[in-house]
């Protein structure tokens, strides 16, 4: 690829290189504003979502989003999921993965540059660092000061780390709020009466946030995260990536020289080699070297370059979202072509639509009443004193609704069979009925008895019907009626 023309010999060094600390300079512009906005949105959702209330009736949790581990329930606004419904999360993960693929094939590492927690928190931590210690040049000077630590410098370092710790602690604190009633837990945390596991998790997440966003930063993306490697396989020649338009930028010349050459009518590039794109880069790379593993495509170099181009009176977007095809086309004097809709993006969108549609359909049509049957294994069948046969079953009724149900149980299959539910008979001898409290399961011992002479087969299918006698909702399950 032609970007290699600009690779300097310095890139071939020893296999191990110590980290060069990155001092990103502040920048303003379109992409910076988008990043601030997304950061506010993401952090806002993360920190405050646990406090959103949702009325589910008396006795049910009133938290909109709650992962209730002790009771094995997951609440998301109007949705309540039971452990056996984890396949919804499988679907969600498939959608999430394909959505990442789609993002990648449309606009490169949008996730990495704007939405990934590592990026968002690192960005926030950089903002704190800049606020306390000053911008790029000041920070570099202070870090490299030969005269040791002044009192002011110590104060700055302590203040910066203290603010970081506070943010990190709040991050861990918000995490645990998703697992318990948020206002109650906040009260418990403030009075030091929260369960130990809450403190442990806050500690873990405080530590990871502090270390990953404060000190490891771009190294997480470059060395720890698998996504940069995977995304290389997902991108194609049409995907828009943050690109230095070398067709326009080369040859790099100083502002003054460029003006002179232009006056003479000679070809000259727009890049004035000001290194602003390098100065603002949070991973410390030079985008002019072409697509690189380290580049998270946050777009800040676009802002930096645009500012310079505006100042020197040249068109914006010397660096912009583009691809190599268009660079070639421009070099050949053709108009650029953007193909967002192409087989790859259509297939990804179709997968998202299909999986999402299936999930929605399953969610919308799922029953809130269910029944499972398990045949007794020992003994499989019992012969009674009059010679008839009895089979015992464990019938589990699931009431996923928010109200108690009265259900009737019927069995069909064996000829002249009678049904007997242990514990239910004295109330309703003719047709066994039981109450299933809301949002719970009831386990019943159910006995099916049938005369041997009218059921000569070794095994007969038996179908258990469960009917909510108030609402008419029904569910059924099949097992076998076995002869000894």
């Amino acid at each position, binding site marked *: 690829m032609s970007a290699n023309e600009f690779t300097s010999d310095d890139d071939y060094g020893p296999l191990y290189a110590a980290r060069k600390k990155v001092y990103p300079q502040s920048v303003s512009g379109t992409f910076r504003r988008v990043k601030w906005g997304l950061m506010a949105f993401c952090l806002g959702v993360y920190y405050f979502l646990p406090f959103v209330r949702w009325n589910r009736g008396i006795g049910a949790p009133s938290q909109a989003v709650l992962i209730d581990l002790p009771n094995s329930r997951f609440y998301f606004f109007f949705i309540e999921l039971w452990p056996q419904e984890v396949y919804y999360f499988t679907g969600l993960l498939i959608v999430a993965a394909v959505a990442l693929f789609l993002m990648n094939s449309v606009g490169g590492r949008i996730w990495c540059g704007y939405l990934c927690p590592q990026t968002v928190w690192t960005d926030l931590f950089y903002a704190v660092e800049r606020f306390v210690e000053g911008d790029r040049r000041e920070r570099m000077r202070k870090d490299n000061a030969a005269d040791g630590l002044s009192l002011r410098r110590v104060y700055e370092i302590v203040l910066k780390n203290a603010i970081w710790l506070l943010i990190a602690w709040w991050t861990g604190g918000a995490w645990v709020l998703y697992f318990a009633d948020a206002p109650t837990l906040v009260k418990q945390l403030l009075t030091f009466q929260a369960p130990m596991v809450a403190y442990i998790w806050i500690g873990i997440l405080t530590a990871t946030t502090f270390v990953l966003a404060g000190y490891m930063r771009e190294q997480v993306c470059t060395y720890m995260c698998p996504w940069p490697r995977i995304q290389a396989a997902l991108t194609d020649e049409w995907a828009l990536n943050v690109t230095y338009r070398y067709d326009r930028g080369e040859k790099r010349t100083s502002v003054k020289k460029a003006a002179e050459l232009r006056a003479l009518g000679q070809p000259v590039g727009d890049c004035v080699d000001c290194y602003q794109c390098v100065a603002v880069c949070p991973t410390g790379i030079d985008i002019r070297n072409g697509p690189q593993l380290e580049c998270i495509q946050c777009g800040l170099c676009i802002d930096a370059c645009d500012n310079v181009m505006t100042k020197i009176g040249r068109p914006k977007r010397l660096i912009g979202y583009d691809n190599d095809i268009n660079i070639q086309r421009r070099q050949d004097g053709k108009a650029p072509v953007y193909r967002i809709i192409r087989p790859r993006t259509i297939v990804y969108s179709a997968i998202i639509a299909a999986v999402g549609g299936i999930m929605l359909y399953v969610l919308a049509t799922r029953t809130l009443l269910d029944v499972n049957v398990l045949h007794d294994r*020992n003994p499989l069948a019992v012969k*009674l*004193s009059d010679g008839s046969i*009895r089979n015992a079953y464990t019938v589990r009724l699931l009431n996923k609704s928010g109200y108690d149900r009265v259900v009737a149980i019927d069995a069909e299959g064996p000829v002249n069979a009678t049904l007997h539910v242990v514990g239910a008979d*004295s109330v309703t001898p003719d047709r066994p009925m039981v109450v299933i409290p809301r949002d719970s399961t009831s*386990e019943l011992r159910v006995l099916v008895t049938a005369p041997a002479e009218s059921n000569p087969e070794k095994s007969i299918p038996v179908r258990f019907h469960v009917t909510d006698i108030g609402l008419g909702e029904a569910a059924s399950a099949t097992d076998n009626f076995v002869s000894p």
Partner: protein
Amino acid sequence: MTDHHGEFDSVSGRSTTGHEWDGIKELNTPLPRWWLITFYLTIVWAIAYWVVYPAWPLISSNTTGLFGYSSRADVAVELANLEKIRGDKMAALGAASLADIEKDPALLALARAKGKTVFGDNCAPCHGSGGAGAKGFPNLNDDDWLWGGTLDQIMQTIQYGARSGHAKTHEGQMLAFGKDGVLKPDEIVTVANYVRALSGLSTRKGYDAAKGEKIFVENCVACHGDGGKGNQEMGAPNLTDKIWLYGSDEANLIETIAQGRAGVMPAWEGRLDPATIKAMAVYVHSLGGGK
């Protein structure tokens, strides 16, 4: 390996150990410092462990460690905690009547869960893990009961057993009519066939029904009742139904009549607490045969 001062390898510049094979000298490459430190720390750790925890076997005991820790004591504490947690529920079980337990879904579930565990620990060796029984050990799933199948009767049987030696135990046994010389062998064969006829089973060729009935009335009716319907006061089984504790074939019947039968069910009072016995009665009753 000592450092041979003054002997240095010319290529690497390292000192050698002085060992030499065919002109090749061994370099002195010490263990990495982090490795050594870790190694010494493990030794320190081990010694501390001996001091703090029980470690060394002595002749009749062992060193107990600084704080007298023992994993058995931990188990005891955990078991006590468990009892404390379950205390309320088991108390509720103990306070409720047997009939009320079966009507209350929560108590029924608790009793069945508790009963199932205790049944597995104590009853399964004879009655089988699902209570299906075996020859001589009644199937607890069916509706045929030697000593009665109501909740109270089941509980009584569990509490005091059958022929267990307990003062309140069920008494009564099948006499050994052959061994004791009450009936002659041909009379035993005849009455065995008569008993088979009672529940509609086939009889031996040339069997004398009138003679069988006469023997049965003279010897068996006292316990098994008129027509062999059984008597739960005596633990005498119903001979007219389809369920046979020792088998319904002629050979088994002859053995039963000739040798007698007196299976033993132990008394569980004293071995299990009252609430547990209650739970077990409910569990056995709920297996399916309970009246």
